[in-house]
């Protein structure tokens, strides 16, 4: 952990932030085109944290104390990890219209739509990063893990496999539709060396 923290020095952090900001800019454009409405993507925040500090770190964001529906989409390749999407269960009906579901929103429609949004968010965040770093990722179908729970109840240190991970936190807001989703991308520890290598290559090319 200490070693990893040292490795993730200021230069590399700046480089990653730059890459991610560019990716988010592209993603925001694409999402706006897709939804046909103004989309706000927050500037991604990075946390490098030990599994035991996770809840403390997340508690800084008060929205995580609410009960939410939690979805997961794993990704693999040179970067491995999971995208965790958190929905606060509001604005679902409006979203259904944006996502092209006609008629009454059934339970199944709603579930599939949340899966769609999870997949879109994970892809939007990661594809831009992957293409800039010149790596290729593969995605597994997303699943709904739980509904109506808080992150604190969901992330139990004893049930998490990794000891520490890099977390990238992004928030998507469709202001006109009262819809918010938070995305937590967990990058596993074995992804650090390849990520650092790629960042170094980029820095060398500057």
């Amino acid at each position, binding site marked *: 952990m200490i070693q990893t923290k040292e490795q993730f020095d200021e230069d590399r952090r700046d480089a990653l932030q730059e890459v991610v900001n560019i990716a988010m800019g592209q993603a925001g454009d*694409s*999402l706006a085109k897709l939804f046909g409405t103004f989309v706000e993507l927050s500037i991604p925040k990075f946390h490098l944290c030990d599994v035991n500090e996770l809840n403390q770190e997340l508690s800084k964001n008060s929205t995580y104390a609410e009960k939410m529906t939690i979805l997961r989409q794993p990704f693999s390749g040179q970067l491995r990890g999971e995208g965790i999407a958190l929905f606060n269960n509001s604005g679902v009906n409006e979203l259904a219209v944006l996502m092209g579901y006609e008629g009454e929103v059934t339970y*199944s429609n709603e579930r*599939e739509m949340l899966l*769609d949004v999870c997949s879109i968010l994970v892809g939007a965040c990661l594809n831009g990063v992957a293409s800039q770093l010149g790596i290729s990722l593969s995605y597994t*179908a997303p699943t709904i893990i739980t509904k109506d729970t808080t992150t604190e109840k969901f992330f139990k240190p004893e049930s998490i496999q990794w000891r520490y991970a890099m977390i990238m936190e992004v928030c998507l807001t469709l202001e006109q539709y009262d819809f918010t989703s938070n995305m937590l991308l967990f990058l596993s520890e074995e992804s650090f060396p390849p990520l650092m290598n790629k960042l170094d290559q980029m820095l060398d090319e500057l």
Partner: protein
Amino acid sequence: MDEKVSHLVNMAVSQINAGMVILDADHNIVLWNRFMQIHSGISEDDIKGKNLFDRFPDLKGSGIEKKIDSVFLLKNLAFTSWEYRPYLFKFANTHSVIGDEEWMQQDCTFSPMIDESGTVTHICLSVFDATNTATYQKKLLRASGSLMKQRNTLAEINKKLEEAQNQLLQSEKMAAVGQLAAGVAHEINNPVGYVNSNVSALEGYINELLQMLAAYEVCEPALDQNNALTEALEQAKKSIDLDYLKEDLIDLLKESKEGLDRVKKIVQDLKDFSHVDESEWQHADLHKGLDSTLNVVNNEIKYKAEVIKNYGEIPEIKCLSSQINQVFMNLLVNAAHAIEERGTITISTGTKDNGVWVEIEDTGSGISQEKLPRIFEPFYTTKPVGSGTGLGLSLSYNIIQKHKGIISVESEPNKGTRFYIWLPIDIEFDDNSNANVA
């Protein structure tokens, strides 16, 4: 890619045991592999170049367009899962011999096909048969559903059993108390009987003795006034204070008889209350029941409350009077306990709808709105640990239910509580089994 490999790739696309469809940017079908041909019955030649949504209009307006858009725009993967969308293409179930799904359950993935310039030119749609998984999953769900149902039924039965057991326990206890009371009453009755008859005889004798004494007193003036005997007589009269003794003797006898009457009444009340030999449905006067219960619980009430009786005119009703008395006792004792310093308990009766009603109202501390719905639950008590079993009202409720009556409660904190009971005059049973439950 050399020709040989390219040929193999084509073979693989054709032979792979999953559906593969390639769409261009206008959603026109470019490739339709063997799996799709076999299951749809549509040849590739028939469908090539046709628009996906024209050929499969059911897909319109169900979010698929946006999924495809998202793949083009974000170079993303998009998915459908049989759990939320059983199928994308309506193919007959592969389990045609043994199986319960009518249509093939499908998991689908939309993947981007990106050219060298980084643009998504086509989409590859893969369709996987998930019928097996779906069947197992649904079976599991059904099994766990029926398990859950069974569990709930069991829990309900357990609860009923517990209630029945509590009631049995309580009624056994009450029966024991009743038997004890009846036994004690009987034991007291005997000595009280002969003391009573002796006192009556004693009264007669004393009256006769007093008459005798009066007769002697009439003779007194005839005695020699200076005689020593006369003086001794005067002395004796003075020393025993004969006049007071004569008066007090009458009073003492009268008080003793009153005391005996009271003992007799208590014994009668105990007998009435316990009704050991009356565990059958009989016509009974509720006023009598109320009065004898009041006498039995008098000790609990007399220091707390004044009892006001607003008795109306009521007919006798068919009931298990010992059990109805038990209800009255529970309500009266609760009313007394609810009163902190001193208050009143008002008992009113009357008739309504072919039945008789009894209201017992106190000026006690009342019951809060949150607690009110729970007071008839077994083991629910607001009294300190050890003071109440929490069974009294639940038992009362069950007794009134058994009589096909109504018991309800109104309460306001710090004002008081009013219990209302209504009982039919002539209870009718659906079957005979109920009538014997005592």
